[in-house]
């Protein structure tokens, strides 16, 4: 009896000790590790060769997914996306008996993934990646309490994060979107021949460039069943002046000839050109990052939100590209020059070098706004600071939908898309966003 009492006391003591020593879950830490990495990666994307908008969206999606998966064991009640995404069935799990420090895990995962996803980043950016990883514990002392970070915990956390990053990259490398500057990809894309015919896309002035990433639509998307979101198709090609197709071209022409100052500003604000900005997906990731910071989100929340939004945006590009190259519709500049104004060119920007329907900006923005609405509410006003450094911000929006609709309409104002591509694209994007929200984590 006495021995039994002693044993009970002994076990109770062990239990207390474990409870006291149990690592806090990821929700107890701030989102700072995640937001600091995204704040660095977004400008890095801007300056990294090969990070065109579809590629950048994939980069952000893998980063977000990796962040989430590396910490899923530290988020009680949540489970992995593995098993729900195409060809991703399982990932290495954290050892149950090895306490991990989740900000350290996140830091290691994001550092490893960033280097693997941006291998072409200029040397100064590579140095910044190293510096951010190294300095994070000093820069974020509230999340990197030395009492929680014994040498052993640091080592375990870093190795778990890197292992997860490697496992995720073994999957990502086979999606068709890896190594876009590699000789294999260049050869593949160079061998693409655009279908010809009435209403078919042709290279556009002034550069008459080859089509961008013509095989991107054959990439493996993250989610299953994206085809269910496909748009209905543009109006039938028709050069008859009163036809629906011609009327849409008329609209593009009319607006471009006499744009309002507001329309000009909107067109430039949402252009999000690669090389000059973090691209459209980066723009929305910037908005999310500011929201996470403003609202003092925790690390677990940030991880799930980056993952869902990244998946939605990347898949929006894959789905868009698949439809674009299947429909292969000509751009407004081609039609307008052919049908009624031989000298017309879009006055604000060059026409992107890929088919018209649907509008990538519209699909992208529709997807992002649908996800953000679910996170923060339908009628939530917010401040967009993406272009503050260019002197264009901050810009306030009354809702995420309003921002997405403005982003979509910007392509009409810019003279590079017809209305159907914009409206159908926004609907397609919102459908894709809702599918990302439908992935189960609980």
């Amino acid at each position, binding site marked *: 009896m*006495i*021995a039994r*009492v*002693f*044993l009970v*006391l*002994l076990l109770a003591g062990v239990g207390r000790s474990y409870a006291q020593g149990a690592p806090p879950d990821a929700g107890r830490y701030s989102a700072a590790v995640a937001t600091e990495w995204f704040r660095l990666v977004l400008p890095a994307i801007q300056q990294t060769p090969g990070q065109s908008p579809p590629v950048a969206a994939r980069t952000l999606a893998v980063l977000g997914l990796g962040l989430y998966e590396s910490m899923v064991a530290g988020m009680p009640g949540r489970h992995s996306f593995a*098993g729900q995404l*195409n*060809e*991703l*069935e*399982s*990932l*290495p*799990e954290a*050892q*149950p*008996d090895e306490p991990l420090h989740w900000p350290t895990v996140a830091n290691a995962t994001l550092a*490893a993934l960033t280097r693997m996803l941006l291998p072409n980043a200029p040397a100064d950016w590579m140095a910044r990646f190293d510096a951010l990883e190294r300095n994070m514990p000093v820069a974020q002392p509230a999340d990197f309490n030395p009492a929680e970070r014994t040498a052993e915990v640091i*080592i375990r956390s870093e*190795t778990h994060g*890197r*292992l997860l990053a*490697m*496992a995720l990259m*073994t*999957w990502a*490398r*086979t999606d068709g979107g*890896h*190594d876009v500057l*590699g*000789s*294999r990809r260049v050869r593949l894309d160079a061998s693409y021949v655009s279908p010809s015919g009435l209403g078919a896309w042709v290279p556009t002035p002034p550069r008459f460039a080859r089509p961008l990433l013509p095989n991107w639509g054959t990439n*493996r998307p993250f989610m299953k069943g994206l085809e269910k979101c496909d748009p209905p198709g543009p109006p039938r090609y028709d050069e008859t002046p009163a036809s629906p197709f011609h009327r849409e071209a008329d609209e593009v022409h009319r607006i471009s000839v006499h744009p309002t100052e507001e329309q000009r500003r909107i067109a430039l604000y949402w252009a999000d050109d690669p090389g000059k900005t973090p691209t459209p997906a980066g723009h929305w990731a910037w908005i999310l990052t500011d929201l996470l910071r403003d609202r003092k989100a925790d690390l677990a929340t940030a991880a799930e939100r980056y993952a869902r939004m990244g998946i939605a945006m990347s898949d929006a590009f894959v789905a868009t590209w698949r439809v674009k190259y299947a429909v292969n519709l000509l751009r407004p500049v081609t039609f307008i020059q052919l049908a009624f104004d031989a000298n017309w060119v879009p006055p604000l920007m060059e026409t992107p070098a890929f088919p018209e329907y649907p509008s990538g900006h519209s699909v992208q923005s529709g997807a992002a706004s649908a996800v953000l609405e679910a996170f923060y509410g339908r009628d939530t006003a917010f401040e967009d600071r993406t272009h503050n450094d260019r002197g264009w911000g901050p810009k306030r929006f009354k809702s995420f939908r309003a921002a997405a609709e403005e982003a979509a309409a910007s392509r009409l104002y810019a003279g590079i898309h017809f209305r159907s591509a914009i409206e159908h694209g926004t609907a397609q994007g919102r459908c894709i966003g809702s599918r990302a929200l439908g992935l189960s984590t609980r």
Partner: protein
Amino acid sequence: MLWVGLAILPNLAASVALSAPAVPRFVDETDAAGIQSRFDGDWEYTVGGGVAAFDCDGSGLPSLFIAGGANRSKFYRNRSARGGALKFVTERAGLELTSTLGAYPIDIDGDGVTDLVVLRVGETLLMRGLGDCRFERANERWAFQGGNQWTTAFAAAWLGDEARPTLAFGTYIDRSRQDFPWGNCTDNQLVRPAPGAGVAFTAPRPLKPGHCALGMLFSDWNRSGAPALRVANDREYYKGGQEQLWHIAPGSEPRLYTEAEGWKPLQIWGMGIATTDLDGSGYPAYYLTSMADNKLQVLAHGSAQPEYRDVAFARGVTAHRPFAGGDVHPSTAWHAQFADANNDGWPDLFVVKGNVGNMPDFAMLDPSNLLLGGPDGKYIESATEAGLVNYQRGRGGLLVDLNGDGLLDALIVNRWDRAKIWRNVGAGSAAAPKGMGHWLQVRLRQEGGNRDAVGAWLEVEAGGRVQRREQVIGGGHASGALGFLHVGLGDATTARVRVLWPGARPGDAALTSPWFEASADRSYVLDRRQGLVP
């Protein structure tokens, strides 16, 4: 009350000490034994590096074939004295081959002389045993098409009533796509025996999809009497791949087990497979090696469906990082094998480890594991205490009795370094080896094409429980042995032995031998006609 509690503690400690497995001592005899092999080469030799052990001269002691990668492979005839130091002599046996990755011994033609399947970068070779450790190429003689692939895994089984084996070959990456290996795994190959009395094979049939196989094993997972084919696949390069289990039956198209049948998708860096009846249930468990993600799988809901749960953590065999040497990075595990290294009657686990090459995020000092099992089902890491220390880039390996003393010796093939061999001296020393528990070794024999009774289950009853060994060809990582099945007996000095011959289900009296009485510390042949013969 406190003093009562404190008084209990020593007893608890004693209890723990009593349950700790006895640690065998291994002595590195690489130089003295005359082993001079290196597994060298670049990209195409990142995997492989196997060894085969087999008795080719009737001495009862296994000789060795060690793959060389870019070097020539070597054959070593076993000249060890029984119970003495390990001694091997390099001989020209016809096995001095280029581009070798590994090998498995198998008696393909049923003549009682062991043949050898040699896995290569390039053509796979079937080497026919001629006796007295001489071999000749037999691809043409047996109508075997060896292809020109990067062949990295092998398993064989005699299916149904077939007199000749069905051969399964695992392949890795398309050799023409080295510029972008990801997503370019090649199909595996299934080679069936051709109809007729002679030894001949049909053209290889693809096992689609292939997912860069690094381990294969025919094993009777549900004790149905018919084996299925497990394939360990390397997630590093496949697209949409996973671990696989195939239905392979005579006269039927191969078919993957599906989720509807209970198979659960699992993606790991699959490198090797080991099997044992872990808990006396009569069903095999499987240890799958990976990069810091090793799994020990047991049936989750009985034998009705191949749904497995991972008990690696519960059993203490995650082996996910180095246990010694100070390197803190994740481990890379390759060959794995269950065997009783200390003869205590509980299976131990040997895991050969080593960095792929110079991968900075994985351990460079990655010692191989010797995990000693005990009656509580837990495993204790003991390689350092045992002296079985290998910090090189281990690949293939074996635990096998090389000097006939009933103690399993060890061999590891290292990439970019020498292969190493250790003599197990039990509780003694090199000068004075001393046995640990008792043991028994049984070689199965039967008439017909399947002379070694591949697919049979040996059962040994001793100390009030039954241990089982499945006679398999395949598994591990590019390494295999054929010969005596070794069973540790612990304190038992006698045992009862029987065999469920190939095709038998538990309880199938027609295919099950009677129980035979056996004395410990001896090697026997259990012949289907003659019974147990010393």
